[in-house]
Each structure stands twice: as C-alpha cells, then as structure tokens.
C-alpha cells in the first residue's frame, strides 16, 4: 500500500479558510476586483511579517501587498487584470518571514474560493456530477441515478479519470457537446419528460434537473421565453443544436481543442 506522508519542516502555520473572506466585485467594462477580509490575529507571528494575497489561475498569478500583520493595508486597486474572469479564480494568503532574503512562509492558506463561487452556492446551479466506476471497455456513460441530477460516470480504469475530465481540454471539449445533446434528447424525447409538467407550467417543477437544464439551454439559445413546440421534432432538434453551438462558441471549444492537440504533437 502506498502511504503518502506530508512534511512541514519549516513549521509553517495554517491559516484557516474560515478566517479569510474574499469577494469578487464586478466592474462595468473591466475585469473584476476583489475585496478581502482577513482574521490573522491569533497566529502568534511577528507583527512586521509581510502579508500578501495572490489571485491565481494555474500559472498566472496576480499578487497584492497587504501590508504587515500589525499594519494591514488594502491596495488602492485590486482589479484582476491578468486573469480570465470566465474561469474559476482562486486565492492564497501568505505571511512571509520578515528577515531579508529569507522568503520563508510563516503561515499560509491555499486554494481559497471567493464567496459566491463555491459549487452549489446561491447564484450557481450544478448541472452535472462526475463519478467513476469500472465500465469495462466503455469510456464513459451518462446516467440519471436518482432522477435528481445528471451523472457523468467515467471508467475508473482510466488513470486519474476524474481529474482529467475536470482539467483536460481534450476530454472536456470532446465530451461536453455530447453530454449536452444527450441531456436535452432525454428531456424532450424520453417518456419521463419533466417530472410534473414543464417548467413554467403551474405544476411545473423548476428545480428538477430537467428544469435547471432547460433554463441553461434557453439562456444559451438567447431567449428565456422560448419553448420548442412539443410536436415539432425539427424545431426541437434545431433548439438542441443551437444550444450546443452556443456552448461550444462561448467556451471556444474547437480552438482550445486544436491548441491542446498542437501542444501535444
């Protein structure tokens, strides 16, 4: 059995995520800025230790000098110029040894999600869950295990399958259009349809997975009022294809796929 051990040779202290509040603030015509509230008083570290907040996405980092533990100072401008605001932004907080050229971390918190961006929080609706299971020779399957959520089940024989789905553009860009198509075909053509009528109907169940997906589809289609006529197969298929096209366009799926393929050649 492989045992993973972690060492903390330098005695770095952990800043609890609950002691850090970060909120992204939209700015018209500009990238978002952020506001941060830090509770670092109980760390027992030198008051002149510098504090930094870093916003990051993979290899892109924007760093902000937050003064010292004793004398915290919010920068005038916390606009995230270098980051892509269409992708998740994470933060880390660092307290650094004040000794010259040392650079040792005295305390840190990594992977902080800004408020309102956490999965399942208000303002965001999860549309799919990901699970792994041995599927023999089938790479993946779209399932509806409890009728409440679509589940993408990836074959557990694929190493790091879940991580790859979450991070790899090749997997995502090939899979996602197919998932969207299958979800909407299920909604419109399967006997179960909506659990209790259509969303918007008096008896409609807007919080069903079908309701959430249809809202998502209408948003991409560009008309929240539009319902394709139930007896017009062509109109339904056209709706589904437009949703797939809009989703692919918004995420530049083909371009990203080509870039990735170019990078692995």
């Amino acid at each position, binding site marked *: 059995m492989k045992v993973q051990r972690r060492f903390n040779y330098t005695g770095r202290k952990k800043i609890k995520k609950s002691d850090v509040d970060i909120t992204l603030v939209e700015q018209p015509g500009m990238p978002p800025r952020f506001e941060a509230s830090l509770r670092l008083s109980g760390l027992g570290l030198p008051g002149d230790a*510098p504090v930094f907040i870093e916003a990051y*996405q993979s290899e892109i980092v924007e760093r902000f000098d937050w003064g010292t533990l004793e004398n915290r100072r919010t920068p005038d401008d916390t606009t995230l110029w270098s980051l892509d605001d269409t992708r998740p932004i994470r933060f880390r907080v660092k307290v*650094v040894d004040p000794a010259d050229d040392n*650079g*040792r*971390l005295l305390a840190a918190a990594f992977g902080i999600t800004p408020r309102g961006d956490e999965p399942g929080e208000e303002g965001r609706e999860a549309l799919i869950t990901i699970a792994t299971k041995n599927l023999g020779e089938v790479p993946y399957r779209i399932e509806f295990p409890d009728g409440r959520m679509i589940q993408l089940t990836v074959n557990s024989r694929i190493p790091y399958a879940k991580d790859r789905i979450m991070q790899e553009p090749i997997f995502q860009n090939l899979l996602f259009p197919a998932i969207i198509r299958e979800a909407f075909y299920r909604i419109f053509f399967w006997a179960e349809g909506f659990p209790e009528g259509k969303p918007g109907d008096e008896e409609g169940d807007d919080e069903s997975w079908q309701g959430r997906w249809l809202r998502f589809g209408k948003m991409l289609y560009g008309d929240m009022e539009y319902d394709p006529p139930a007896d017009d197969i062509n109109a339904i298929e056209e709706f589904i294809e437009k949703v797939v096209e809009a989703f692919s366009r918004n995420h530049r799926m083909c371009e*990203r796929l080509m870039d990735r393929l170019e990078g692995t050649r």
Partner: protein
Amino acid sequence: MNPIKLRRLNRLGINKFEEYLDHLRNPETDQQPPPFHLLEDIETSESLPWDAEIHQKSFQNLYELGQYLVPVIDQCDRRKITFDQGFWSWLGLFFFDQLCPIGNNGRRKPRLNYYYILSSDRRHQYRHVVRTAYLFVREHGENVFFMFCSPVHIWGDITEQLAARQYFLGCRGVMEAAGHLYFDRLRNSPRRGAAAKDKPGTVRRFGLVLKQFELTWDIFSLTGQKVLEILPREFDRFRVQEEGESRKTRSSFWRKFSWRRPSEAKPDLQ
C-alpha cells in the same frame, strides 16, 4: 526606413492579419508579402495617445528586440497596453519579416497565430513573442539573456518552459537563479542539456521543483542566491562555481579531481 508612430490594429486589421496567416499556411497558394499596409491604414488601425515611434531594425536575437522595445513601449501607459490585443498584434505584424522569415524553400512557415496576434485566452498570451521578450527583458534585463539569445524567429524550449509560468515574470530571484544555472557565459549561450527532457536539473525540473517550494517559500521574495541554496542536488550539474567557467571545463575537471564530503551533501527536497 523612417520611424513610424506606434498604433494598434483594430478588429478588421486583426482579422486581415489572421487571414494572411491562414493564407501562408495553404500550400496550394503563392505566398504574398506581409500586409504591412494594415499598420497605417486608418480602416485597419488606430492611433495611440502617446508619441512613441518605432524603427524597423534588424535584431540578432529576441533579447536585442526586447531591449530595443523597452524604452519605446515605456512611453505608453503600461496598464492600458499590457493586455491590448490590437497593440501587440500591430507589433507582431510590424516585425513579421523577422518573426517569420522566408525559409530556404522560398516560403514562410508561420507558427500558431498567438505567436504574432495576442491571444484573448490569458493562458496563451505568454507565447506572443514580441510581448514576452519585452516584458521579461524589462523586468529582468541581462538575467534573461539566456532565454532570448536565439534568433528572433526561434521560440526555444527554455523560453517556453520559463515563460509559460507567467508568474516568474514577477520573481526576480527565480530568474536570476535560472540565468545563473542555465547560461554559459563562456559560450554566450544556454548550457548544453539545459532544455533536455526527463533529465535531472533541467529547466523543466526547475519549474516543477519551484512549484513544490511554493508550499514552503514565498518564491516572489527569494533572492537568486537563496533559490540556488535551496535547490536540491540534482541541480549541481548546472551550478556555476566561478564566474565565466564553462560547464564542460568544470565537469571534466571536477570529475577527476573532486569528491563530495558527506557532510556537504545537501538534503534532497524532492
């Protein structure tokens, strides 16, 4: 050629530049000269509020290009231009003859568009040759000569590995240490084997090891000397003992006439 004022390509100008790049990639068609007229055509470009002027000069390497651009571009408002796709794409076109020269077969062979046209995807922006050369030379001066000492049209693996970690731009000590490790001052070029794959102590490993260090060190605060101190033993083969000493001389000499005291062995942090 007389100097011209810096401008930016507008959407139409960028589209036409993209069309030209696509056209170059088509093996069936005769290649046309670069559409330099887009640079000053008011239909395809826009003026900038600064008086910066630029000359068409020939550069030995990307470092020279970066050096030349620093005082020119610094006349502009840096915040406004850093992510301006039109601005950098204009420069990509301005220097296109050097960025994508005509090959021995009489044809140009362009790389992906984002080497010349600044990508709107932040993850690819480091591949804009002109912009990355300018940003790194501006921040790190001679310490990054080893990254940009190749001819202007070559984007080497050392450049790719270090520039891809875009936050290294703000890590003075890290870049100083990288220059110390991977630049052979005697040969005035990167050390042999610095860009090798799957070998200890190479540029690839440098990036990965520093990533591990981020849990313990604030790499933005580290000095170059400190980075060299904390790097594990696998980097010894690139560590320079004395200024101007080439690795070949050093390694052959020390292999014969040195031994490692057990007490001097550095802990391997991997």
